[in-house]
C-alpha cells in the first residue's frame, strides 16, 4: 500500500512540488483549459471546427515578427500574433463579402500565405531550434509574465463570453431572428473570432502555435459524445481539457517528451475512446440503439 502511494506521489505529485517550471506550466495549462474549450464548443456547433486550425497558422507571421524584433519575448510575440490573426480574419471576411466567395476559401488562402511568411521570417533570423520553440512551444520558458498574460486572457475570455453568451447562442441557431431584432450578427462573429485569436496567442507558449488549437477543439469534439446540452458540452470540455493538460504535462515530464504534443495526444486519446464508447453517436451507442426495441412517440402519433 505504502509502495503504491509512493509510486503515485512520484508520478503525480513530486514533479509539481519539486519543480517550479512544472507548477507554472500546470497553472498556465489549467487557465487555458478554462477559456479555450468553450470557444471550441461554439466553433464546433457553428461548423467552423477547421477555422480554429486556420487561425492557429495565421498567427505565425505575427509571432515570428515579434521574435525577430524582440527576441524570445512573450508579450512581443503575443501582440504580433494577435495582430496577424485579426488581420487574416478581417481580410478573409472582407474578401469573402466583396467577391461573394465562401469565407472558408478566403480564410484558407490567407492562412497559407501567412504561414509561409511566418516560417520564412523565423528562419531568416533564428535557428531551427527557435522555429521548433515557436511551432511546438516549450514549458520551460513559461515565466511570470507569461503566466500573467495567460491568466488575463483566460479571465477576459470568460467574462466576454458570459456577456455575449445569449447573443451567441441565438445567432448560432437562427441568425435571421437576431437580424430581425436589429442585432448585427457580424459584430458578434467578429468579437468571437477576436477571442479565439487571443486564446491561440496565449496558448502558443505552452503548446506552440500549431498545437494551441488542439486544446480548443479536441475537448469540445470529445464532449459531443457525452452530452447533448450546451451547458453540459461546455462543462465537460473544460474538464477534459484540464485533465488532458495535467496528464499531458506529467507524461511529458516522465518520458522526456515535448509538452504540447503530449497534452494534445492525451486529449486525442480521450476523443478516440469517446468515439468508440461515448454515450451519444459513438460506435457503441449505435450498436446498442440498433438492438433496442422500437420506440413510439406519443406526441407525433396523437390523433387529430
Amino acid at each position, binding site marked *: 500500500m505504502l509502495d503504491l502511494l509512493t509510486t503515485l506521489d512520484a508520478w503525480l505529485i513530486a514533479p509539481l512540488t519539486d519543480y517550479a517550471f512544472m507548477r507554472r506550466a500546470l497553472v498556465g495549462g489549467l487557465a487555458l483549459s478554462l477559456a479555450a474549450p468553450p470557444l471550441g464548443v461554439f466553433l464546433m456547433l457553428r461548423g467552423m471546427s477547421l477555422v480554429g486550425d486556420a487561425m492557429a497558422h495565421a498567427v505565425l507571421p505575427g509571432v515570428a515578427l515579434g521574435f525577430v524584433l524582440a527576441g524570445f519575448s512573450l508579450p512581443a510575440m503575443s501582440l504580433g500574433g494577435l495582430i496577424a490573426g485579426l488581420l487574416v480574419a478581417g481580410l478573409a471576411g472582407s474578401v469573402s463579402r466583396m467577391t461573394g466567395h465562401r469565407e472558408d476559401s478566403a480564410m484558407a488562402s490567407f492562412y497559407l500565405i501567412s504561414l509561409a511568411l511566418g516560417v520564412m521570417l523565423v528562419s531568416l533570423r533564428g535557428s531551427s531550434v527557435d522555429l521548433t520553440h515557436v511551432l511546438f512551444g516549450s514549458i520551460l520558458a513559461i515565466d511570470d509574465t507569461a503566466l500573467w498574460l495567460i491568466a488575463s486572457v483566460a479571465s477576459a475570455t470568460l467574462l466576454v463570453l458570459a456577456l455575449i453568451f*445569449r447573443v451567441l447562442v441565438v445567432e448560432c441557431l437562427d441568425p435571421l431572428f437576431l437580424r430581425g431584432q436589429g442585432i448585427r450578427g457580424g459584430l458578434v462573429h467578429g468579437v468571437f473570432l477576436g477571442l479565439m485569436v487571443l486564446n491561440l496567442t496565449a496558448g502558443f507558449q505552452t503548446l506552440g502555435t500549431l498545437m494551441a488549437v488542439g486544446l480548443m477543439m479536441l475537448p469540445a469534439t470529445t464532449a459531443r459524445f457525452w452530452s447533448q446540452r450546451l451547458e453540459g458540452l461546455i462543462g465537460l470540455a473544460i474538464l477534459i481539457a484540464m485533465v488532458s493538460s495535467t496528464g499531458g504535462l506529467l507524461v511529458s515530464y516522465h518520458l522526456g517528451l515535448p509538452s504540447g504534443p503530449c497534452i494534445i495526444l492525451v486529449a486525442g486519446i480521450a476523443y478516440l475512446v469517446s468515439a468508440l464508447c461515448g454515450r451519444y453517436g459513438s460506435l457503441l451507442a449505435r450498436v446498442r440503439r440498433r438492438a433496442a426495441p422500437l420506440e413510439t412517440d406519443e406526441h407525433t402519433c396523437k390523433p387529430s
Partner: protein
Amino acid sequence: MSRLTLEALTLAQSGRTVLENISGTFEDGAITALVGANGAGKSTLIQAIMGLLPPLSGKVHCGVSKERRAWLPQQLALDLTFPMSVEELMLSGCWPTHGTFKRYGPQDYRRMHTIMQRLGLSGLAHRPLGELSGGQRQRALLGRTLMQEAELLLLDEPFANVDTHTVEILCDTLREMASAGATVIVVLHDMEQLAKLADCVFLLAGGHAQWVEPETLLERHHASARRHAHTQAPFISLNLPDVPPCSTY
C-alpha cells in the same frame, strides 16, 4: 391607418429585379396569404418587410417596431443540430423585453408554460430541438413568436412537412393572433389551407402583385384542376390577367 403599407416597391436580389412597383395595404387583424410560383419573389418580399433587404426604390411603411416583427422561416433554415431545448428556444422570444442581459423571471416561465400548453407542447420543455418531430418544432417556433408578442407575423410555408394535428393548432393560433389585432402574412402553397385560413390573397406573378379574393382564386384553381385532371395543375401557375383583382383592397 394600417400598420403595413407597401408603396411602389421595387426589390432586387443579386442584381436581378424580382418585384417591380409593388403597392398594397395589409389590413390589421387579417390573415393575408402570400401566393406565387417558386421564384415569384415571396421570400424577397418578406425580407423587405422585415427590413433585411433595402428596396431599390419605393418604401415599406411599417408601424411595428423591429422587435415586434416576427418571421417564421422555413424549417430548413435552422441549424437543428444545435443543442437547444424547446424552453430555451421559446424564451429567446423574450428578446424585445430582456435583450442580452436580463434574467428570465418566474412570470416569463409562467407565460411560456401557458403558451406551451396552448400549443400542445407540455412536457417537452427540456427536449432538444433535434429530437422533435417537424410539427412539434414548428409549434415551438410559433411559441417563440407568441413569447415575442409579435404584432406583425410573417410565416414562410408553415404547414410544409407537419402533421394534421399541428396544422390545426397553427391555424387556430394564427386566427387568435389576428383576432387580437396582429397582422399575419403567410406564404402558402396549399389550396386547402388557403381556403381555411386566408382572409385575403396577395398574388405575386411575373414581378407584379395583385390583391385577389380567396374565393376567386379557389374557383379558378378548381376549374383548372378539372381541365388538367391528369396533370394536376397547381394553382400557382395562374397568371395575373387570369384572375380578376379584388375590389376591397
